[in-house]
Every structure is written in structure tokens, then in C-alpha cells.
């Protein structure tokens, strides 16, 4: 893509995100969400492949409708309470509409249907942006209004998200769809703790961003779009393959890797809030996503592809490693001993 166009789109993404997360007035928050939506549409559709255009169409329709619903819910709240402050969102109907609108924007169940298809149709780096950066402004709006949201609705959506993210990811072989379902399940973990401890939800989101970015960057290096391309990557980048296995197990939430930290802290907080059945349910449901993470790790690192022994292997070319991949992968494997500090500084 033309470097001027890419720089304009990147700048618009940063601008839209900054406007939304630093706003006090609902109209400014809506403006930032719209700028984000407009900026990422060309990045999805840039290859002009039919799948990319279809993904851009589905993304545009859902996100535009959700933005309009956000502004509508804030307008109903303004007509009832007389002010447009984001933290003073007190009317229950407005909060319900806002929760539904942000659930559409994030991809929480039952509004998740667009997310795997849009990720499948977009290039790997744009899929990374869709999974991490585009989730940040709507999540910020939920964090700012978290004290007036309905806990029962959020818990129901969170448990359904973890369940569906796990179950629907089991039959997938395309890596972008697997990562979409992993994103839906992690959003379930974020949503369940949002009302009780917003700081913990933010910490979960940050760690999920680090781990998902590490996976996407590693997959982009080996250009792995489906499971069979992952299987033959051990000849080209052996160290990246081993690191990818560890990052995937960290996404699954296995101790002693970083991904265990948010799950542990969330279950602890839910138990303190007398929500033990919900804690047990969400922990059991994330075992489903553990299966497909283990399958990805197994096929990438632990087994060799079904080739005969005198099959010609690809040359091991020493590609220069990229610093962001290395940094993010190290963070997503090694941050667990720092968990008291992480919980305190977020």
C-alpha cells in the first residue's frame, strides 16, 4: 500500500483511540469510535480480494450500527439526567443499551458472529489491529461506566463468550479464526470481572494484548494461515517455533507462564465477591480453548509433518529477528513472578 495512505490510516487509528480514551463527553467518545472505524476499513480491504471486501462490508455494518447505538444510549441518558458526562451514566435503560452496543463493538456473545469472518478476511497485521487496538476504546467506555452496569447481564455474556469461544474454536484449521475465537473467550474473562474490579479487567486486557500480539507477529513471520503451514515451519525458524509454543500455552493460561496471572486474580476476586459458581464455570469453560491452543502448539513444535525421511527440507535461512516479536514473546512468557507489581501499577 502507498506509504502516504498507510501513514494517514495509522495516524487516524492512533488519533481515534486517543480521542475516545481521553474524553469526558459522550459525543467526543463517539467521534473517536467513528474515526477508528473509518480508518481501519481500507486496511481490511486493501488487497481487493473478494474475501477482504466481504470482511470490510461486515465490519463496517456492525461497527457503524454499534456506534449509532452508543450515541443513542448516551442521548437517552442525557434527556433523562440532563448531562453528557461519561462517568455519570445512571439511567438503567441507557446502561442496557450501552452494554449491548459495546458488546457488538467488542464481539461478545450474542453479538460475536461478525468477528471470526472479519478476521479471516483480513491480512494478518490488520487482524492483529482488529483484535487488540480496536478493542481498546470500547473497553475504556465500559470501564468508565462500570459502576452503573448490570452485573447479571455482563456475567451471562461473559460465560456465554467463554463457552462459545471454546466450542466454536475446536473445529477450526485456519489460524485467524482460531485466534478470533481465542479473542472472544478472553473477552469473556475481561467482561466477568468488569463490574467488580475494573483495574483487573484492564490488566487482563493488557496481558491479552501482549500475548495475542506475540502470536500474530510470530505467525506473520512464518506466514502461517492454516494449520498445515504451521506444521512445516520448524525447518525455517526453529527458535520462533519453540517460542510460539510457549506463547500459545501462555494464552491458554498455564502456570508458570504469564497468561496464568489474569485467570488466577480473576478467580480470586470472583470468590471474594461470593460468585464461586461463576468462577468455577468460567474456569471449566476455558478448558475448551486449552484444547485448541494445545493442538496448535503440538502441531507447530512437538510433531514433525507427515513427510518421508528423504523429503527435501526447506533451507534454514537466518532471517533477522524483529525486536517487537522478541520483546512481546518474552513478556508473555516471563511476567508471572512480577504479578504483585502488575496488580499494583495497573
Amino acid at each position, binding site marked *: 500500500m502507498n506509504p502516504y495512505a498507510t501513514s494517514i490510516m495509522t495516524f487516524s487509528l492512533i488519533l481515534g483511540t486517543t480521542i475516545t480514551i481521553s474524553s469526558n463527553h459522550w459525543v467526543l467518545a463517539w467521534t473517536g469510535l467513528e474515526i477508528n472505524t473509518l480508518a481501519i476499513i481500507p486496511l481490511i480491504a486493501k488487497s481487493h480480494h473478494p474475501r477482504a*471486501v466481504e470482511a470490510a462490508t461486515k465490519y463496517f455494518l456492525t461497527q*457503524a450500527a454499534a456506534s449509532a447505538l452508543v450515541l*443513542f444510549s448516551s442521548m*437517552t441518558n442525557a434527556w433523562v439526567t440532563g448531562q453528557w458526562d461519561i462517568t455519570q451514566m445512571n439511567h438503567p435503560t441507557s446502561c442496557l443499551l450501552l452494554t449491548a452496543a459495546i458488546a457488538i463493538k467488542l464481539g461478545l456473545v450474542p453479538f460475536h458472529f461478525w468477528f471470526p469472518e472479519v478476521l479471516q478476511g483480513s491480512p494478518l497485521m490488520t487482524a492483529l489491529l482488529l483484535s487488540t487496538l480496536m478493542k481498546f476504546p470500547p473497553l475504556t467506555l465500559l470501564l468508565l461506566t462500570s459502576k452503573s452496569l448490570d452485573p447479571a447481564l455482563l456475567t451471562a455474556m461473559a460465560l456465554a463468550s467463554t463457552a462459545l469461544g471454546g466450542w466454536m474454536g475446536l473445529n477450526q484449521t485456519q489460524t485467524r479464526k482460531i485466534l478470533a475465537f481465542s479473542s472472544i473467550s478472553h473477552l469473556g474473562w475481561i467482561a466477568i470481572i468488569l463490574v467488580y474490579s475494573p483495574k483487573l479487567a484492564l490488566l487482563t486486557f493488557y496481558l491479552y494484548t501482549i500475548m495475542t500480539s506475540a502470536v500474530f507477529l510470530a505467525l506473520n513471520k512464518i506466514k502461517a494461515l492454516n494449520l498445515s503451514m504451521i506444521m512445516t515451519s520448524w525447518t525455517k525458524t526453529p527458535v520462533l517455533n519453540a517460542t510460539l509454543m510457549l506463547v500459545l500455552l501462555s494464552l491458554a493460561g498455564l502456570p508458570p507462564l504469564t497468561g496464568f496471572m489474569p485467570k488466577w486474580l480473576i478467580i480470586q476476586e470472583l470468590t471474594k465477591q461470593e460468585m464461586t459458581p461463576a468462577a468455577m464455570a468460567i474456569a471449566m469453560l476455558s478448558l475448551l480453548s486449552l484444547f485448541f491452543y494445545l493442538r496448535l502448539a503440538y502441531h507447530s513444535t512437538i510433531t514433525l509433518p507427515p513427510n518421508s525421511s528423504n523429503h527435501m527440507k526447506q533451507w534454514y535461512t537466518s532471517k533477522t529477528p524483529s525486536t517487537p516479536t522478541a520483546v512481546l514473546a518474552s513478556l508473555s512468557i516471563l511476567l508471572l513472578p512480577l504479578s504483585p507489581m502488575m496488580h499494583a501499577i495497573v
Partner: protein
Amino acid sequence: MSPLHLSFYSAFIFSGLGLAFHRTHLVSALLCLESMMLSMFVGLSMWSIENQVSSFTMVPILMLTFSACEAGTGLAILVASTRTHGSDHLHNLNLLQC
């Protein structure tokens, strides 16, 4: 709720339902999106008139600007999908199913 509020709330809800229950063409979905924005414009203009907040008069125009940009993007997507899929029929958008 006064009849005035009922008018633009119900306009928004019906256009939202029209967007949710779209049937054949992408153009009708884009039109419903535009009518949602139009009802929001009326609502925001009513705010600045009824509450006598003259500094809020810019907000409906700002909202209209962004909805115009969004309409332009929607039309560009319509043209792109007509070029790749041959028509704007929504049941042709089935290449990405699970």
C-alpha cells in the same frame, strides 16, 4: 416522554430494526444506517433548542459530518463489493463462513 421525544426515539428504533432485518440488498442496509443518523441529528438539535444551550448547537453539525464520512465509506464498500461479487445482494457474501 413527550410526543417529540417519542418521534425520534421510535425513528431510531425502527431504522435499527430495518438494518437488523435487511433482506436482499446492501443499499437498503446503508439507507437504514443513514436514517438512524438522521434521527440522531433531530434528537441532538432538539437538545440544544429545548434546553437553551446555545454552545451545543455545533454538535448536530459535527455528528452530521461524521455520518456523511461514514455514508461515503459505505458507498465505497458497496462499489467494491459490486466489483468483486457482481452485485450487492447480501446472500452473495458467504465466502467466509465457518
